[in-house]
């Protein structure tokens, strides 16, 4: 008997007892578990929220101006947490620095550290800084005590609020957004590549994977900002800008349609090509993923939101009903995309690479790789967001006025 932890032994024994057919003996353990489901979910929201924000800066969609800062802060809050599930999942978290110092150039995963840092430091933080600089300078002047120092530090002790300086801020943030769009694509497309490039696993190994990940990221990011916008207006008892909400709804609709088309293409392609793995993948879907894939991801997370968004655009519902429908839609989508991440990550580990059997995954409730940790990590961005709102107030709906055009 080796010194393996009791809980792991129990988990693996249970999973072994649930095996259907033949699997390679080392396949009993689910190598990438719930935390690796959370990771692409978080980075997807980051990329999606940023792309929504970029619509304002780059494409001058004035209607979405009210959520510009909200979207940026959402991206930042989720970004700060996005690396944590990976770190916690490592067998040797204390060696994670090796990815930065001795990266293996042929490894897709080795690039993670660089893509992540670039996006956080090179794009998000700088963009947010330029967006808030003027306000931070003013707040530093008005605040007293500790907060004066905090705001001073956050503005990097800049003082210049002359029209030229502000014009420069705007220009700089526009340029960063332009660089930011491909970077956001890179951030999440790359996550898709990590899975899509695994030729050993036909459920993952698809050239469409990065782009499917990217589109679903945009869907989830927009849905998250929509959800937060409605939720915050309720909490603050403030009026929503319905023009803004309708516009977000439109973008969401377009994104879902593209996402749906891509995912359908992926499935149709697989079915039509009908390669060696198709039989076991069919069994995987019917025996292991029916609820999470067919019911939650496709029907509840995609079809129903699609239907609602089309209805909202064709039937003239009143404001309250629209708000309710948007709120429901955003929640359904967030659930659906989480389910999609589950189906990719866990689903890809529920069938044997011998194509002769199916495995089981028993999620732990407590411990590091557990439901508890996953819930904490999913809740953490909201906590960070609350702090960010205090520090860097977004323009709330009630204070906001559309720029005169």
């Amino acid at each position, binding site marked *: 008997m080796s010194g393996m932890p009791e809980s792991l032994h129990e988990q693996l024994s249970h999973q072994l007892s649930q095996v259907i057919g033949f699997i390679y003996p080392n396949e009993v*353990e689910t190598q990438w578990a719930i935390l690796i489901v959370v990771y692409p979910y978080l980075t997807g929201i980051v990329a999606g929220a940023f792309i929504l924000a970029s619509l304002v800066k780059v494409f001058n969609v004035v209607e979405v101006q009210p959520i510009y800062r909200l979207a940026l802060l959402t991206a930042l809050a989720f970004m700060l947490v996005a690396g944590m599930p990976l770190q916690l999942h490592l*067998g040797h978290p204390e060696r994670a620095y090796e990815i930065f110092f001795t990266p293996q150039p042929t490894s897709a995963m080795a690039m993670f550290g660089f893509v992540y840092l670039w996006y956080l430091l090179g794009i998000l933080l700088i963009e947010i800084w330029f967006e808030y600089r003027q306000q931070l300078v003013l707040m530093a002047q008005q605040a007293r005590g500790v907060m004066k120092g905090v705001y001073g530090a956050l503005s990097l002790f800049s003082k210049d609020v002359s029209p030229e300086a502000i014009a420069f801020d705007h220009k700089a943030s526009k340029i960063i957004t332009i660089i930011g769009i491909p970077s956001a694509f890179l951030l999440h497309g790359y996550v898709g590549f990590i899975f899509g490039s695994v030729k050993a696993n036909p459920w993952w190994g698809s050239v469409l994977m990065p782009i499917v990940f990217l589109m679903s990221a945009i869907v989830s990011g927009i849905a998250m900002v929509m959800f937060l916008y409605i939720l915050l207006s309720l909490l603050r008892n403030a009026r929503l800008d319905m023009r803004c909400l309708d516009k977000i709804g439109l973008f969401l609709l377009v994104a879902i349609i593209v996402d749906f088309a891509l995912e359908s293409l992926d499935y149709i392609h697989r079915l039509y090509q009908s390669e060696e793995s198709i039989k076991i993948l069919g069994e995987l879907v019917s025996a292991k993923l029916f609820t999470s894939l067919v019911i939650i991801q496709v029907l509840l997370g995609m079809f129903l939101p699609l239907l609602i968004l089309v209805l909202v655009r064709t039937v003239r519902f009143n404001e309250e009903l629209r708000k309710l429908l948007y709120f429901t839609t955003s929640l359904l989508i967030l659930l659906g995309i989480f389910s999609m991440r589950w189906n990719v990550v866990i689903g890809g580990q529920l069938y044997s*690479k011998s194509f002769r059997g199916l495995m089981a995954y028993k999620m732990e409730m407590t411990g590091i790789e557990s439901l508890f940790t996953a819930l904490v990590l999913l809740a953490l961005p909201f906590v960070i967001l609350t702090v960010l709102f205090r520090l860097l107030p977004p323009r709330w709906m009630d204070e906001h006025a559309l720029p005169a055009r």
Partner: protein
Amino acid sequence: MNKREFLKDAILFFPAAGVLQALSCQAAAKDAAAPAASAYDPTDHWYGMGVDVDKCIGCNRCVEACKAENGVPDEPFYFRTWVERYSIHSNGETTVECISTKPAPVDQVAPEDPGIVRTFFVPKLCNQCAHPPCVQVCPVGATFQTKDGVVLVDEKRCIGCRYCIQACPYGARYLNPNTRTADKCTFCYHRITKGLLPACVEVCPTEARIFGDLKGKADRLVRFQRVNKIAVLKPDLNTEPKVLYADLDGEVR
């Protein structure tokens, strides 16, 4: 010596000379691989293994020897090598089981199933691919290919991200619960570089496993490769395995 005798001697002499020469070559090859540790040059070798499927009797001794030699955890979730049993049924169906996870008691003979027309055992292990996907994906270079063609894991460097386990098409890797790092067959690298055989090869009672050096001219493995119909696992994935199976059934993946 008359003409007849001369021809008879000549016919005997030439093959005998060939045998002698082959033997001396093999002895030299053995010398090259042998102890003189400082003289060991990995670039002289390119190790591989042959598996004679028809010779495997499914005794599982290779698995036990491997676990003992390499400190592989006893639990039935971790294997550097294992043995699969294939049963071909009269209706054309194939069932497979891993006999290494739950070895049947030796004194118990399995009842004969009239529906089974043919069974055979297939030992599995890391294929020590010449083009290994596990090495490609390792983010920190902890898993690498040696110059003599063996894929190893540096357990002091491995961060335990498990990407290599996902990338292996053969299920040959696992995360060692004790070291929390990726683990796999090393061809008993600590033994072969001293001129010894891997533990699984050493204990195999039927010589179903043939270890050798694909660079060695008169190597057993090279001969094995020449005289048998060889197949490798999942050739379509272009991993270029160096575990070579003789007379492998198409059902084996």
